[in-house]
Structures are given as structure tokens and as C-alpha cells.
């Protein structure tokens, strides 16, 4: 193993230079501590700085992300070559099963449209989605959010829901000009009103910076079983109703909440779509 060799001699400081350096160090530590304390009050200027830095670095992060993802995909694909035949037959079986569900969904969709017509149901505005690439994520322990390469210029605004092909990802927390930050449903600041299980009981999905969020404020008589589906309820107006979120897991968290397994595969989240507000049937969006 290599040694930490002695490098070129560092120029000796004069006493004045050393004092100035220490004073600067102490000042910066004080500023950092001050920012941490003041930041608890959700100071707008800090959010603005975060947005501006995100905007500034978006092109660089985008340039770094593309080759890194390509390299990662090559690596993971090589690992899968051996299991390709087995995976192919599994996918064929799954495809056949999904075709049956597709036929059923089409039949129910037609039935639904007919019933809506009979009831003169107003489906609301047309839904528009904005596609974006994930350019930075914070798998770090203190926040669960990601940065995407679409911002105000593309029509992204705070509090819009963000989805992937699998389900709800989170909501737009702040939007810059060409980038926006998405608060994931696993972040401890995330609170999503949801409906759980076949009885559609109301609850709040709360993150804890872990991989699996949990349900809070469940009614005492709520009988949920592992595998029960959780969808957004639409209460509060931030998230449209009907977006698939996840399934009820087996474990119950120490705080008493029920653990949810999100539908989104965080390890393969590359593209997302931002839902421009509307009140139509959002379940169709994630199945497209």
C-alpha cells in the first residue's frame, strides 16, 4: 500500500497570517452554525440560494449524470446476461397476465365513461405532464429529494405532483428557471393524504428519511393487510386523487404506523413526469 509521503514544504505563516487564518476559520464556523439555527425558521433566502445553485449546476450535473448512468447500466446489464433466458420466460408469463388485465381495464374504462356520461360527470381539466430527467439525488441520510432538469421555463411550479411510470414520486418543493427540486414521499417533511386498502380508509403517509414511509392517523378499526394498495386521496389539494403510491408492507413501525412499500423503484428512477394540475383520472397517467 502506498505511503502518505511528505509533500513539498508548505510555506511557513507569519504570526499575523496565522491569526487571520484562525479568525477567518472561526468566523466561517460561526456563520455555518448561525445558518443552521436561522434555517429552522424556514428562511426564504436559503431556499432561494438552494434554487439558484441548483439552476447554476444543472447543466454540469446533467452532463455528469448521462455517462454515469450509461456506465452503471452497462455494469448491471452485464450482470443480468446470465439470467436473461429465465427473465425472458418470466416476462412472457407476466405479459400474458397483464394483457388480461389490460382487456379488463379497457372494458371497465368503457363502462366508466358510459356511466359518467349518464351522470353528466365533469371530468375536470385536461391533464398535462412535463417530462424531466433526474440529475441529482440525495441518497444522503438527512434529506430525501432529487433535482430534475425541468423548471419554471418548462412550466414546473411548486406543489405539483411528480410521478414515474410506477407511481407517486413526490411533489415539487421549489422550482428554478431550468431545474426544480422534488421532495420525495420518503422525506420526513413529506405528508401525503392517502386512501388505504379495499375499504379506502383515510390516513397520512409520512416519510422518515428511510426507504419506506409509513401511515399515520389511521382509524382504530382500520383493517389493513399486507399487499393492500395505497393511493392518494386528493385531500388538501396538493396531490390529485387516485395516484398509486405503494402497498402495505408486513412490518409495523415502532411509532405504531403501518409501513408502506412504495411502487417507485428508487434505484432506477431516471425520468419523472410533473403533473400540471387537473382533476381527471390520474390512474391512467402511471399506466401509460
Amino acid at each position: 500500500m502506498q505511503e502518505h509521503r511528505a509533500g513539498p514544504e508548505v510555506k511557513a505563516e507569519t504570526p499575523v497570517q496565522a491569526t487571520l487564518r484562525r479568525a477567518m476559520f472561526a468566523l466561517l464556523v460561526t456563520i455555518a452554525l448561525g445558518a443552521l439555527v436561522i434555517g429552522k425558521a424556514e428562511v426564504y433566502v436559503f431556499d432561494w440560494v438552494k434554487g439558484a445553485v441548483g439552476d447554476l449546476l444543472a447543466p454540469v450535473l446533467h452532463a455528469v449524470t448521462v455517462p454515469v448512468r450509461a456506465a452503471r447500466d452497462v455494469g448491471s446489464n452485464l450482470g443480468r446476461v446470465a439470467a436473461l433466458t429465465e427473465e425472458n420466460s418470466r416476462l412472457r408469463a407476466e405479459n400474458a397476465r397483464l394483457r388480461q388485465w389490460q382487456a379488463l381495464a379497457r372494458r371497465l374504462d368503457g363502462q366508466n365513461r358510459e356511466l359518467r356520461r349518464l351522470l353528466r360527470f365533469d371530468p375536470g381539466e385536461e391533464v398535462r405532464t412535463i417530462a424531466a430527467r433526474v440529475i441529482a439525488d440525495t441518497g444522503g441520510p438527512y434529506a430525501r429529494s432529487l433535482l430534475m432538469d425541468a423548471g419554471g421555463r418548462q412550466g414546473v411550479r411548486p406543489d405539483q405532483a411528480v410521478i414515474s411510470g410506477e407511481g407517486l414520486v413526490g411533489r415539487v418543493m421549489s422550482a428554478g428557471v431550468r431545474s426544480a427540486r422534488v421532495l420525495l414521499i420518503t422525506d420526513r417533511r413529506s405528508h401525503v393524504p392517502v386512501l388505504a386498502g379495499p375499504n379506502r380508509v383515510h390516513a397520512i403517509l409520512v416519510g422518515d428519511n428511510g426507504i419506506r414511509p409509513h401511515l399515520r392517523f389511521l382509524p382504530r378499526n382500520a383493517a389493513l393487510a399486507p399487499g393492500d394498495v395505497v393511493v392518494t386521496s386528493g385531500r388538501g389539494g396538493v396531490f390529485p386523487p387516485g395516484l398509486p403510491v405503494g402497498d402495505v408492507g408486513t412490518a409495523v413501525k415502532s411509532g405504531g404506523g403501518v409501513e408502506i412499500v412504495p411502487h417507485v423503484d428508487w434505484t432506477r428512477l431516471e425520468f419523472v413526469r410533473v403533473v400540471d394540475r387537473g382533476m381527471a383520472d390520474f390512474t391512467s397517467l402511471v399506466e401509460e
Partner: protein
Amino acid sequence: MLTHLDRAARAAVPGASIAVLLLVSLVPWIGDRAAPALAVAGVHYWAGRRPDLVPAPFVFAIGLTHDSVADAPFGLMALVYLFVLGAARSQRFLVVGQPFAAGWAVFAVVALAASAIAWAGASFYYGAALSVGAPAAVLLLTVLTYPVVAGVLAVLDTAALRRSA
């Protein structure tokens, strides 16, 4: 003129490499799983080897950039990087000229203390004691990847700085 430019470019190597390490650690490699804090290793390496080329304001700015992109509590990573800088500077004698294992052990202790500061700062910010599982995973990855980071930086060190000395 060219000599000045060449010297300035060489002096920028530590800062540029720390910035690149930060960018690489923020890119979505494996999604929601923990990623090593590569820039912490970078700050520790250069602060021990060439403290004159890693000024505190630069490290502070790197920390705020990390806070901004990673959406960490504003000031948290700036504080952590400053701690690593101060610790590495004061422990230079334990790293420079010593076997690599000694430097690695010193880094592990500094990284552990930095993780504790980050955890305490984040818990204070959110007003609740956060889980220690995820910070522990980040710490483990950071310590395990240190030889690779230090190896790459040592090559840069030799190529860009030693030859100019």
C-alpha cells in the same frame, strides 16, 4: 506569464478535485441507497498534504454547495467540511510521512466525528433524534472508499504539484 499560469493551474488542482468529487457523489449512482461522502475524503487528503491550497472560505463554499444541491439543512455540510479541514490540518503530523494505514485510521476517526456532528446538527434542525442507520452506512462507505480516493488524489498530487515543487 506562462509560468504564472502554470503555477496557478497546478495550485487549483486540490480545489478542482474536491469539486469533482462532490459532483460525482451527488450524481444518482444507485438511487436511494447510501453513497460515500467523497468530498469529505478529498478535503481530508488535501488539507493534510497541502493546507495552503485548501483555504477555509473555499471549503465553506463547497459545503454550502453540497447543502444546496443535496437539500441538506443550510450550513450543515459547510460546518462538517470546516471540521474536517480543521481536524486534518491539526493532525497533519499523524498523516504526512506515515504509513498509509495510519493516515487511513486517522481519516476513519475524523469521518466518525464528522458524521456525529452532521447527525447532531440534522437532529437539531429537524427537532428530533434521527435514525443512525443511514449516517452509519454513509460513514462505512466513506471510510471503505478512502483508499481509492486517496490513491487517485496521490496520482494528481505527484503529477501536478510535486513536479512543480
